[in-house]
């Protein structure tokens, strides 16, 4: 009955509609062990009994159960009820710890008679392996043994899993479509303050008003009329451009080169981004392009004080391919299925990390962002970010810049609005970059790179962010759960147009939920983990003070300007600007000068001297030791590195409970409830003290009672080259010399 997925090779085109057959769910044989299905979820195939092996390959740790492959996930359902499930404080409603969403599968290895082979979709799948090892994009590793299952079932499940998780498919096969057809068109919960979705004019106007910018709103793409022309598909429905840019400029290079407003600094200068113009050889085209860019730069300059700086990101930052390559090397170090290998790799851990260059790419991005922040904050220069497509690294840099400069984006809803503005509506190609359709060639974890950078800021300034590390980790996981409209489209145009088609087919208005509706994934209790208990909200005092101190909102650091802006020299400045822009000198503007590094340092040092204002400018420390590994995300599933009863989480918990106590005391004072004693609550927690949480809480399970420490198994001592020193004795002067003062050099 569930053979749809098993003869995968024969399908020419994946046909989604045929799967949706609610009757299929009522299979009696499987009923008792079925996973809890989501609306619209359909089983393709299953196999039983399958053994789920733990990490260290010990038979005692294996669990017997059934393996399913549905249109949403690969799911393992255990035969026995596990006690562990009871103490999970943080559960995802959409998938459990034994579920792998199909889009979350990174790589599958087949175990062929002790030989491990990477399964690629082109590979012959006729011979099914004894077991499969699944590496997930959220860094989990699963090992399933198919030895016990009947051969036919094993073959089917293997082929089904490979076909549905590795082979190219069409957009409509993404589970979100099937899901949204089967959920009631639940209106998005409008919590307050709400996340701006930037899908209507109101949100854009609100943002412009908030930042006090003065750019021109363009509505010509309201019905995506421009986007329908192939080359424009990245453009959002609504956007702001400098007042001096004309509507017809849009047409000149299919929207490329047009500065699109991102954010305005309180001084008046603003941040713009654009896609770079196509490469041309011919002299006349080149000249035309230069003139055009000059005009665009002029228009940006006109925004404030005639100062503009073009920052070409394609030239100074790693390419999309570099990022992808680096990340695939990097993540490999965390997908561990063998303890021996773990301890061997431990020896060269630091250099292994370094050779992936991932941390270095993070540093480069942060560095570039600080550079841009410096122009905006210190020199009040308008910035135009230029990048080939205009929707990858420019999104990273522009959002980082805004995060550093504007405390609003460090709140939870502010951050979500930022992601909407710069990434989702800003036209980042999530579909291809996340490789949801398994067409590998354009994959690159650009958004994850951004989250990595945010994490660096968060860990350096943990009091400045309303959201927690867990929030970032969960958000990074959500990228590969293909249920949210946020991460499955290549552009706003694609989203609107495909939803329109779907709705027409379905006969009613469909709506794929956004990832920001966290209640889809987590219950109220779990959602608390998304907030940072250390966040220092702006006190009322500060708020009122800032209100009174117009005109400039207090964002710290008004460094002494080397050349104070002279408002009355408009003409001269324009003249010099013209000169600067002419000819080849334009390229000079786009290059990172050698002194940029030094300048950024100086800027950082100057900032560091100031008292730190968590609601002001925030800069990252870029020194070697300061850029760190996002341990929670990458190490959370590895048993060897769980510190039970330790980690920063203990501090956070202590502070949280103290804050709660404070809150209770405050309430008590306000309400003057004399009966309630504040210390009743705290005695409750004392009992829990035997439970030891992992340092990666809330991701790894808790341990109670005794447990074994992880003791390194291999020393590989030979690799450590100590030279002749190692052979020496501790004391050359055995037994004889015990005096306090020893003689001079030997």
């Amino acid at each position, binding site marked *: 009955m569930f053979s749809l997925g098993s003869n995968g090779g024969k399908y020419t085109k994946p046909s989604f509609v045929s799967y949706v057959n609610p009757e299929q769910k009522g299979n009696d044989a499987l009923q008792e062990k079925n996973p809890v299905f989501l609306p619209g979820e359909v089983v393709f195939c299953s196999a039983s009994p399958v053994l789920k092996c733990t990490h260290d390959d010990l038979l005692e740790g294996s669990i017997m159960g059934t393996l399913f492959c549905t249109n949403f996930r690969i799911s393992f359902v255990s035969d026995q009820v596990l006690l562990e499930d009871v103490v999970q404080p943080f559960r995802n409603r959409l998938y459990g710890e034994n579920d792998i969403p199909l889009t979350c599968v990174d790589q599958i290895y087949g175990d062929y008679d002790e030989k491990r082979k990477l399964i690629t979709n082109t590979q012959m799948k006729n011979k099914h392996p004894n077991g499969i090892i699944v590496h997930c994009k959220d860094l989990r590793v699963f090992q399933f043994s198919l030895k016990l299952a009947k051969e036919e079932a094993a073959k089917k499940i293997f082929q089904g899993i490979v076909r549905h998780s590795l082979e190219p498919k069409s957009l409509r096969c993404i589970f979100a479509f099937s899901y949204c057809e089967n959920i009631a068109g639940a209106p998005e919960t409008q919590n307050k303050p709400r996340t701006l979705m930037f899908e209507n004019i109101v949100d854009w106007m609100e943002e412009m008003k908030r930042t006090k910018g003065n750019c021109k709103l363009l509505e010509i793409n309201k019905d995506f009329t421009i986007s329908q022309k192939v080359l424009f598909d990245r453009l959002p429905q609504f956007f702001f451009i400098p007042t001096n840019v004309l509507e017809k400029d849009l047409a000149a290079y299919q929207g490329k080169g047009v500065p699109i407003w991102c954010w305005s600094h309180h001084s008046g200068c603003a941040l713009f981004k654009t896609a770079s113009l196509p490469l041309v050889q011919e002299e006349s085209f080149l000249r035309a392009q230069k003139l055009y860019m000059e005009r665009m730069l002029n228009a940006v300059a006109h925004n404030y004080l005639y100062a503009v700086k073009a920052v070409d990101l394609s030239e100074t930052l790693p390419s999309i391919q570099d990022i992808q390559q680096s990340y695939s090397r990097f993540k490999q170090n965390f997908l561990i299925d063998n303890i021996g290998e773990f301890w061997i790799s431990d020896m060269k851990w*630091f250099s292994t990390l370094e050779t992936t260059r991932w941390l270095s790419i993070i540093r480069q991005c942060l560095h570039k962002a600080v550079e841009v922040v410096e122009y905006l904050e210190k020199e009040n220069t308008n910035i135009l970010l230029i990048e080939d497509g205009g929707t990858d690294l420019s999104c990273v840099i522009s959002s980082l810049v805004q995060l550093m400069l504007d405390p609003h984006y460090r709140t939870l809803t502010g951050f979500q609005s930022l992601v909407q503005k710069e990434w989702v509506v800003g036209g980042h190609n999530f579909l291809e970059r996340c490789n949801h359709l398994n067409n590998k060639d354009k994959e690159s974890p650009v958004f994850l790179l951004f989250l990595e950078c945010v994490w660096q800021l968060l860990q350096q300034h943990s009091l400045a962010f309303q959201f927690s590390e867990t929030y970032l980790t969960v958000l990074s996981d959500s990228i590969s759960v293909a249920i949210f409209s946020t991460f499955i489209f290549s552009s706003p145009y694609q989203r609107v147009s495909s939803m329109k088609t779907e709705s027409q087919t379905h006969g009613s208005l469909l709506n794929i939920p956004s990832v920001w509706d966290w209640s889809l994934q987590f219950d109220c209790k779990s959602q608390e983990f998304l907030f940072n208990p250390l966040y220092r909200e702006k006190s009322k005092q500060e708020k009122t003070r800032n209100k009174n101190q117009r005109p400039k909102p207090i964002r710290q650091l008004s460094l002494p300007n080397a050349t104070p802006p002279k408002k009355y020299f408009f003409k001269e400045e324009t003249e010099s600007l013209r000169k600067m822009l002419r000819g080849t000198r334009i390229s000079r503007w786009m290059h990172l000068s050698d002194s940029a590094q030094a300048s950024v340092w100086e800027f950082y040092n100057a900032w560091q001297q100031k008292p730190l204002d968590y609601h002001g400018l925030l800069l990252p420390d870029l020194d070697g030791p300061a850029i760190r590994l996002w341990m929670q995300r990458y190490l959370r599933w590895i048993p*060897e590195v769980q510190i039970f009863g330790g980690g920063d989480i203990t501090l956070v*918990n202590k*502070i949280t409970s103290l804050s709660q106590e404070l809150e209770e005391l405050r309430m008590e004072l306000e309400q003057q409830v004399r009966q309630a004693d504040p210390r009743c609550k705290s005695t409750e927690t004392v009992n829990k*003290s035997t439970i030891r949480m992992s340092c990666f809480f809330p991701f790894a399970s808790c341990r109670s009672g*005794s447990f074994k420490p992880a003791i390194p198994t291999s020393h590989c001592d030979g690799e450590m080259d100590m030279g002749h*020193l190692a052979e020496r004795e*501790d004391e050359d002067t055995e037994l004889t010399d015990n005096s*306090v003062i020893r003689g001079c050099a030997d």
Partner: protein
Amino acid sequence: MEKSGSADSLGSKRSSSRQPSVDSLTSTNTTRSDRSAHLRSAVSPDAASARTDLGAEVLKESSRIAEGELQLLPRESVQDTASDVTYICPFLGAIRGSLTVTNYRLFFKCLDKDPAFVLDLPVGVISRVEKIGAISAQGEVSFGLVCKDIRNLRFAHRYQEGSLKKSIFELVNKFAFPVSNALRMFAFEYGQPFPENGWKVYDPLAEYKRQGLPNESWRITKANEHYDVCETYPATLVVPANIPDEELKRVAAFRAKGRIPVLSWIHPETQATVTRCSQPMVGVNGKRSKEDEKHLQAIMDANAQSHKLFIFDARPPVNAAANKMKGGGFESEDAYQNAELVFLDIHNIHVMRESLRKLKEVVYPNIEESHWLSNLESTHWLEHIKLILAGALRIADKVESGKTSVVVHCSDGWDRTAQLSSLAMLMLDGFYRTLRGFQVLVEKEWLSFGHRFQLRIGHGDRNHTDADRSPVFLQFIDCVWQMTRQFPAAFEFNEFFLITILDHLYSCLFGTFLCNSEQQRLEEDLPKRTVSLWSYINSQHEEFTNPLYVDYANHVLYPVVSMRHLELWVGYYIRWNPRMRPQEPLHQHYRELLAKRAELQRKVEELQREVAGRAAVAPPEKAGSPAGSPVQTCV
């Protein structure tokens, strides 16, 4: 130890508090101040100090101190001052100012800068003074000072060759190496009184009593009262009850330097023990000792829970075997039945010294950003830390989970053995994780059991190439720091405490770390003639206390010893770099919250009293819980 004059930092706070003279000198003052000196060059004092962890209260007191004033300690005397010295700071560039040398410190200040730039360090941290190059065209001579605390200082000053007046750096050379120059160390001059006598922190009998000793299987012996069983061991020892004193001497003959197996720690429930000793004198011929075998058997028998004994040899097996050529070696499993020998692969003092030298190259003065991680790896420093922690972890695991007694030794049993036994005890026993407990641990496992501090540090000794120098104790403190990182609420002391210990390891201000053994310390009469570091620390313990401490008395801590969790101690090794911001905002935040809670609790209690006064019946009283009592939370 650079220090800004108006002293916004930690140090100056201390300098203005109870013991002004002491504090202003502790080299740790300058930990932060170096940074602040840099910071403050462009900022108002208030702004700069607000950023340091201690916050506003620091300001008020410290601003009273005159800028850049040298505050002398009791019996400290100025030897000379040179006014035209340039300090070539690797972070700020050349700074001109005056240099003062006393019998305790080197003090450089530049008043041209606003605020004044001050560099203040005990001459004890200097391991080497060298003249660099010839006299320059401007008639200046360069001097380099290599310091034990991971920094080098460079000065230039005008100096005429052949003139009668000696260079001020010759004075530095004199006072930095009192031992080589037949002078008295400053610790013997300094007589600052403190409310508590730190020499009394460790009382062996009291500590053994705390552990439940003596008991039926273990006795306390005075056999070494005159240090004639083993001159590097303490006078009080705990040995198996059925081994008489005469036999101990025969066991001593079979153990290197007479360091017989004695008890360090006993598990309160299982009676499994950690015992320490030196290597057996097996030699190439595989010599045996009946008494030694009986002794180890007695150690095993003292623990009824297990019929096995684990012998942890800290060395790599190759080195242990090589020791046979010199009469040493390791226990053969034939001779010691029921004993299992495990090698822990920790390298010798020379390898460690070389590793630290490389580390210094990598972190001082500047860090090469792009190769930071591979450079760090190439020093092997963290790899050694990992091996030491892993060894201690295995010991703790055997004792706690295996309920088995262990014997720990290396070659002489005073370097790697001290590291392993003290770290294992720190994992096993919550007492040692308190401020005082840690002092007891250091006094017991390191000082009384004869870690050769004088030789390893080379106090006051000019001979900087001495092969006996090695950062063994620094490694131990680094391991402790790694544990505090992994269990931030399990230790009563804070990072500043650890840094202070290390700074005074070199300063020679206190007598604590002088000499090589208990015997020598008594011969020198140190407890009478010098001040203990613990006197100073315990007289202002709040400075060294971790506000987030939760007393998990019965918790055994198992740190994760994977490289994934080990990191370089930036707050110590890279503290001279002004760009390294100390990361303690959480503690500060917590302190603020505690203060707020105390205030609110006070208000609530006031209200309660008010109500109680009005109403006839008082509300149920949960009296007695003071505002500051720590709330136990789940771990």
